[in-house]
């Protein structure tokens, strides 16, 4: 197998230039998809027969929740790559993920509780998904706290990478145990739209939003990655050229 691409990705100048070139290719489609999804979700999709217009929160809640998990997984994968092959760029990518993921976790929690109020009659319900989301927020905060606590960048990279890997192994266990716990106490689980029967006019905007958020994450990651590479990099010759460009 040919792993040249892998090694080239490990080289900061190459990745920096690549990230710079790729950013618009993710950013513009993301903007278009999100706007189209917004139009479709707010205007075109019909009200839900049970939840009325309240269900439209799904078009921001579901993508935020998806982001929180996807970003954590990406972070853990990047961290593992950095840990195993000692690739600086991978650590830089993992470090870039955390603030993005944490902020979307907050968005998922807030939109979830705003959705909960009309549906459950209370802003907070110990529903397994919201609870898992809250735990995920703490995992993000722990990651960022550990990173901030260690001054030396390399050690911070490696220590937080290990934490991310340990965390991602734990996420399914936590989710399973929270679901199990919840099933014992028979809390209402309302945030369950009848998915298979969802009409296309409702589903398509949701898919557009999901894809749009994913592309947005890619664009944000690429910009942050460049910042991280610049602060980490010591060979200045290419930096001089990159900054001039």
């Amino acid at each position, binding site marked *: 197998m040919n792993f040249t691409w892998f090694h080239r990705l490990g080289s900061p100048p190459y990745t920096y230039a690549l990230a710079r070139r790729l950013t618009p290719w993710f950013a513009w489609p993301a903007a278009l998809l*999100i706007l189209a999804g917004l139009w479709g979700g*707010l*205007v075109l999709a019909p*009200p839900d027969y049970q939840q*009325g*217009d*309240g269900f*439209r*929160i799904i078009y*921001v*809640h579901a*993508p*935020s929740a998806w982001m929180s998990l996807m970003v954590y997984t990406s972070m853990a994968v990047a961290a593992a790559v950095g840990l195993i092959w000692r690739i600086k760029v991978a650590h830089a990518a993992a470090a870039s993920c955390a*603030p*993005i993921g944490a*902020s*979307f976790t*907050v*968005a998922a929690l*807030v*939109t979830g509780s*705003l*959705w909960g*109020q*009309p549906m459950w009659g209370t802003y907070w319900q110990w529903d397994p998904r919201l609870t898992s989301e809250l735990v995920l927020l703490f995992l993000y905060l722990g990651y960022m706290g550990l990173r901030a606590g260690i001054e030396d960048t390399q050690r911070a990279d490696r220590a937080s990478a290990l934490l991310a890997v340990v965390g991602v192994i734990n996420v399914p266990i936590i989710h399973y145990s929270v679901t199990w716990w919840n099933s014992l106490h028979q809390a209402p689980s309302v945030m369950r739209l009848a998915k298979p029967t969802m009409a296309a006019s409702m589903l398509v905007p949701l898919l557009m939003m999901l894809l749009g958020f994913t592309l*947005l994450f890619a664009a*944000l990651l690429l*910009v*942050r990655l*460049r*910042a*991280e590479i*610049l*602060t980490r*990099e*010591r*060979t*200045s*010759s290419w*930096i*001089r050229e990159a*900054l001039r460009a």
Partner: protein
Amino acid sequence: MREFLDMGGYAAFVWPAYAVTFAVIGLNIFWARRALAHARRSALRRLESGNAPP
């Protein structure tokens, strides 16, 4: 239009949810760009001060 803004009586929940999410998106874009600008500035400073190794 008023009907649209009213969201079938759910306006108090739908609009804040959208506002929060798009605030998070906006903040993320702002933070990412600021981080890049900051990194560029400090890299330039390092280059000018001649502290950086060859």
